[in-house]
């Protein structure tokens, strides 16, 4: 796949700006190139070349990362790409290697081998200024005041001044905490402390937002708040990367995913592509009535009951029609029959196995 797009002047009709251009497939890219070369020919004038900017399809590329702790291989040759402007999910069980991968992406851990490439260049410490990071285990200085805390974390990202103060006040107002700006963190409720933590993550307006198990320990109100922030940041063209063991949630939010199991990336790519690839022989069925007769059908490979729905896999893609006919013939009341649909959880089970203890860890609401 073509990753490096073009070297161009910033004032060409596209109004290309670093980090704002969203190119998710080669088709769009080709069109853009064609348009650009046309303009380039038409307006072959020196003043169009103002800045030289490298534009990449991928904001981040993780290349062959490995990390061991003593005898434990936490991450084993992991590679995946995070496209610009996307929500990217790193999915796996607890202990699969998600946090270690993220810490290497954040330059908190140094990889034993491999590298992380940020828009074409090997990533260094400077990346930290462009990223807002919410670790799974998070905390604040309890004795510090709210506003002091916000300004301190912004300063650590290299942002100071009036603009940051104003932005901090805006966020506090939006999260209904403006009247608490001189309170000490320890005097806030746990939920409000979490809100402050969100603000510290995004106050410096980062291009990348990395969230490690972001919903662990959040109350429903803050879960919603964080979801809204993620969506808002996506519309602003930011890259959002999060790790989670909640398959259902990843399925609803992510454009791209990478699945990690025992330190190895077992699957990665666009969610749409993955689902269509794995879903061809799958049917998601919501019904009323007995369907146990399906067990004796030779063309059925597997039936799995997920409570609200049942996942059925046939042996060949064309047999989904036979399945539908059979259900109607047996007077099963069909509420939903979704061919070519497979949940992320099912894909995960197929790839990573389904031992009992793993079942418990994985949530598939």
């Amino acid at each position, binding site marked *: 796949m073509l990753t490096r797009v073009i070297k161009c002047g910033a004032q060409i009709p596209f109004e290309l700006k670093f980090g704002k251009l969203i190119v998710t497939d080669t088709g769009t890219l080709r069109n853009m190139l064609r348009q650009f070369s046309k303009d380039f020919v038409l307006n072959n004038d020196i003043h169009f070349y103002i800045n030289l900017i490298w534009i990449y399809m991928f904001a981040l590329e993780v290349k062959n990362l490995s990390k061991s702790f003593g005898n434990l291989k936490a991450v084993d040759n992991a590679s995946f790409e995070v496209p610009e402007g996307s929500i990217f999910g790193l999915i796996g069980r607890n202990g699969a290697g998600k946090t270690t991968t993220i810490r290497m992406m954040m330059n*908190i*851990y140094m990889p034993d081998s491999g590298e992380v490439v940020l828009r074409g260049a090997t990533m260094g410490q400077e990346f930290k200024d462009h990223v807002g990071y919410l*670790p799974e285990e*998070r905390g*604040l200085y309890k004795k510090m005041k709210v506003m002091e805390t916000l300004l301190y974390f912004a300063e*650590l990202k290299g942002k100071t001044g009036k603009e940051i103060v104003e932005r901090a006040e805006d966020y506090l107002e939006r999260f209904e905490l403006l009247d608490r700006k001189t309170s000490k963190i320890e005097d806030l409720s746990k939920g409000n402390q979490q809100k402050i933590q969100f603000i510290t993550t995004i106050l410096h307006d980062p291009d990348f937002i990395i969230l490690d198990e972001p919903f662990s320990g959040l109350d429903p109100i803050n879960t919603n708040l964080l979801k809204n922030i993620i969506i808002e940041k996506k519309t602003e063209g930011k890259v959002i990367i999060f790790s989670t063991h909640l398959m259902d949630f990843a399925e609803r939010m992510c454009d791209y995913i990478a699945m990690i199991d025992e330190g190895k990336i077992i699957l990665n790519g666009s969610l749409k592509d993955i689902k269509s690839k794995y879903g061809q022989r799958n049917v998601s069925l919501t019904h009323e009535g007995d369907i146990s007769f399906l067990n004796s059908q030779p063309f059925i490979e597997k039936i799995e009951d997920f409570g609200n729905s049942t996942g059925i896999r046939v042996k060949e893609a064309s047999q989904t029609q036979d399945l539908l006919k059979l259900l109607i013939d047996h007077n099963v009341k069909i509420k939903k029959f979704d061919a070519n649909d497979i949940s992320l959880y099912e894909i995960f089970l197929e790839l990573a196995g389904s031992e009992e203890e793993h079942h418990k860890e994985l949530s598939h609401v």
Partner: protein
Amino acid sequence: MFNQKTFAVMKRELREKLLSKTFLLMTFLIPVFMFGGLALQTFVMSYSGNGDTFLSIVSETPKITNELQKEFSDKPFVKKGKFVISYLTMNKETFKKFLNQSRQDLISEKLTAVIYVPESALKDKKVEYYSKNPNNNSLFEKIRGSINTALIDVYFGNKYFSSDDIRFAREGVDFNSFRVSKQKEIEKEGYGNMVVSFLLTFLLYFSLLFLGTMMMRSVVAEKTNRIVEVLLSSVSSNELMSGKIIGTAITGLVQMAIWLLPLVAVVSTSWFALPEKFTISMNGWQILYFLLNFLIGLVTFLGLFASVGAIFDNDQDAQSGLWPVMLLIMIPFFIAISLVSNPGSPIGKITSLIPFFSLMVMPARMSLVDVSLLEILGSLFINLATMILIFMFAGKIYRVGILRTGKKPSWSEVVKWLKYKY
């Protein structure tokens, strides 16, 4: 190493430490405690209780009794009525009976002590002391001189010496010390330098311990608060550690400078006329050296304390894991203190050029004797090199340690951390 991020961390540390109530309290209370402690010790040593002291001094011969009476009656503590002394003359047999009779009074402390001065004391100066509290050093100090004088007077009084001869014989030898050094003229030496040496050593010891523990606590707190990973998403572990150490070191330096102000005032101005006995022969350079040495020592030990904090994830474990660092502070401290009694000892000379020891021993030595410039520069170099090495070593342990929680690591694991690529 020092950039805008380190600066931001440093500023926060300063705000938290320098402007805290604890800092103000400690800065002003430590000297109070220190002098208070000294004063208390002196008071306890010399305090003889609320009640007066009642003594029975029994001599074997009337001659001794008379001399003792003559000698004691001049003493202020007898004149003021603090000491009530009865003088008796008895032979050994009668004294035994007398002692038996007095037993009840001694136990009930109506009588503080019975002192028996046998005739043989004129040969061996051995007297007997009977009391409920037989090791009353402050009382011994008070009466020893008088008894000695009385015995000497009786002894020589039989031998036709003039009173001047006797006075001479009674005197002990008094050392008038003079300091000989290359640059200066020969100066009369007083107790001042000993006091300064003791004070400097104590301040150094206390400050390293206090600030180091503070540093360790703050690292442990960042770990237990889970704030450290958030911080590491913005700064590198080196920037974080440097910022914290520099912030704390500045706090310490300010504190030390405040403590040294009186000394600077005494040395550099003539506002305080010290009695000759307490002359301090220090100059500005020595104080400057002391501050520089302190700063180097502080940074070295803060690095060590920070790495101990990073290894453990609660205060209790950290305290118990602190012993190797504590040894590095305690042993030099005791050596430095003992230098007061023999500043020229070879142990002092050697340890003042050994890493960690030098930090405390060298300033103590310098305030007592003249140390050659070469030795001073040598110790400065050794300390700087130690500091840099410790910084690198602590940086590694810190980097691995701060993200680890859970099981308490063993020392062998910590050694392995040094080889980790983090």
